[in-house]
């Protein structure tokens, strides 16, 4: 598919502070691309540069094969939904939707028709006569989205559009937004600090930190094969467990020992011997009521109840290890056995926080059966 948006070595400094440094990425035609990271990572700055509200200090912004660095915002063909939605509070919803058409010289009759059609599509018909200032947050969000969609931008930019909404509303809007995007084949560039939003909506996710791009890939890639410790810890709820381990080289292969568990896995990869870290998702922590090979006994300290599943916090040395179980599996204070399913575990190199690709990291054959 063709590249709709390309960022080449994009850079922005505020004073001496580098907000974005050397960011390069491509958003393909019709793709939903999320830029995710903690606050202050430079994602909103990136968005403002693409929209034309901020001047880049270095690098190129290419939209539809055209360098737009020096174009004013209006001529870039982008649509922007602000974090605070910026609905025109003094205009009616109808006038809000018609605004972009009006400035493009669309006739009154045609405007009315287009507004009506889009309002029906987005369930806004009942709001059309209301004043922008009288809407609640989730209504504002839909109006802001519709206002931008109606002019059919080449690229739709969304700046944390869910952060002002209640959790319950957020979850239902995720699906809605994604469906609208699919139905229209709209290229979307979505900025958020919420990894759940990014995972559930995106075709691809770019993880950013400190102005730099750490990893870009499909949600599955980002979740299952993070490139470093930050991505692994940032993505996933409940978060991944990161535990100290010892790596031994054993001929062409390496062996991973976890204190208390002994040798948990073997595989092939390039990593120095010594103390490293291992990341295991709570789903891959196996909890049982009976002793199994490779499992150690532990106590349940807390339980987080998520309704459909419970997350146990299990004592391990001076830390707690999270494990996902079915509801009602154990109660607080219960003694259970825990072990690791190592097939999806990640080996994190100490010092660099890089995740080392290991061929066939597998449970130690000796302990099996």
């Amino acid at each position, binding site marked *: 598919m063709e590249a709709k948006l390309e960022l080449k070595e994009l850079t922005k400094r505020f004073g001496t502070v580098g907000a974005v440094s050397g960011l390069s990425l491509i958003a393909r035609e019709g793709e939903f691309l999320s830029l995710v990271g903690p606050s202050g990572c430079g994602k909103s700055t990136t968005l403002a540069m693409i*929209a*034309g*509200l901020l001047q880049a200090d270095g690098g190129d912004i290419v939209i539809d094969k055209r360098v737009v660095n020096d174009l004013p*915002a*209006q001529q870039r063909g*982008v*649509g*922007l939904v*602000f974090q*605070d939605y*910026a*609905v*025109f*509070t*003094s*205009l009616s919803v109808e006038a809000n939707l018609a*605004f*972009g058409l009006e*400035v*493009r010289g669309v006739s009154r009759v045609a405007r009315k028709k287009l507004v009506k059609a889009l309002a029906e599509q987005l369930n806004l018909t009942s709001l059309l006569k209301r004043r922008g200032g009288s809407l609640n947050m989730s209504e504002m969000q839909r109006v*802001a989205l519709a*206002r*931008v969609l109606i*002019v059919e931008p080449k690229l739709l930019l969304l700046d944390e559009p869910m952060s002002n909404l209640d959790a319950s509303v957020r979850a239902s809007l995720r699906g809605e937004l994604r469906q609208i995007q699919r139905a229209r084949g709209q290229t979307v560039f979505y900025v958020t600090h919420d990894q759940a939003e990014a995972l559930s909506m995106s075709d691809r996710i770019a993880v950013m930190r400190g102005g730099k791009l750490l990893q870009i890939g499909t949600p599955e890639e980002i979740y299952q094969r993070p490139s470093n410790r930050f991505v692994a810890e940032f993505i996933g709820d409940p978060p991944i467990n990161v535990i100290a381990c010892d790596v031994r080289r054993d001929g062409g292969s390496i062996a991973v020992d976890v204190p208390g568990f002994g040798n948990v896995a073997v595989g092939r990869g390039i990593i120095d011997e010594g103390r490293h870290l291992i990341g295991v998702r709570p789903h891959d922590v196996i909890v049982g009521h009976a002793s199994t090979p490779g499992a150690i006994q532990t106590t349940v300290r807390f339980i987080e109840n998520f309704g459909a599943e419970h997350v146990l916090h299990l004592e391990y040395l001076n830390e707690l290890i999270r494990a996902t179980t079915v509801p009602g599996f154990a109660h607080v204070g219960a003694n259970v056995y825990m072990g690791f399913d190592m097939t999806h575990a990640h080996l994190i190199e100490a010092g660099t926080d890089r995740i080392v690709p290991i061929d066939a990291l597998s449970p130690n054959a000796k302990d099996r059966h």
Partner: protein
Amino acid sequence: MADETVKMEDVDMISRRRAKRWIPFNVALVLPAQLTVMAVVLIPTLIILWLSITDWQPTQGIPWFKAYVVGLDNFRELLHDHRFTAAVLRTLFVVIVCMAAEFVLAMSLALLFLDEWPWRKIAVSAIILPMMVVPVDAANAFFMLFGDRGPINYAISLIIGRSFEFGWLENPNWALLPIMLAEIWQWTPLMFLLILTGLMNLPENQVRAAYVLGASRTKIFFKIMLPLLTPVIIIALLIRGIETFKIFDPVYILTHGGPGSSTETISMFMYDSAFEFFRMGYVAAAGLLVLVVVVSICVALARPLREHHR
């Protein structure tokens, strides 16, 4: 057991006292303000009600409360008093002209100050200087400027090329102009300051959103910024309208309502009636009429202000 009962009642007493005291506490806080206002506004208003139906004049030598009741004669006379009706109409004319001029000037000036440029702060300070001049002094300055041998006439002389020594303040057709100019000169800065601050504090993202959507600057101004500015404009006009309606100082200093009664405003008319002709009953009636009109206009106008203040 008896002890216990007493204690329980004590607790109950404390609670009840609190329960009762709760409301008076906040009322006590507004009491000083409320009493001051009542002393200076409410009681005089009651007195005005009485005086307006009498023909009391201090020169009659009888105390005001023994004055002769004439019923509605004062009001009847007022409605047929051309000097009064002329003063009312003239005041409304001054209010409308001044507000319009101040608004247009202030808005155009404020738009010049939206950009950041060097010396901007100093220019703002210079432009708002007139509103800080004591009004009586400002009126005196305009008296000098518009004197027959003042700098205004001199400037006109230079332009038309011959000596021009027009008596602005002595001419019944022109005397109102210096008064209004003094008022506009003094108070455009306030309107300017209000509108400028309003403009600088508009929700930035709405303007940016309109910009990204492709709207021209004129369009952004009329369609987005102006409506957002409405509450500020209403308040600015309200403040200025109310104050201009009471216009007194420049009239008193510049013309004292003259020549004849050609520049007499409502305040000036009432002042003269009270302190030149000592017709207190008549002035009271006029004051009452004005109060009723002003209060009803303000109650009507207050709605936008109140709604905005939720």
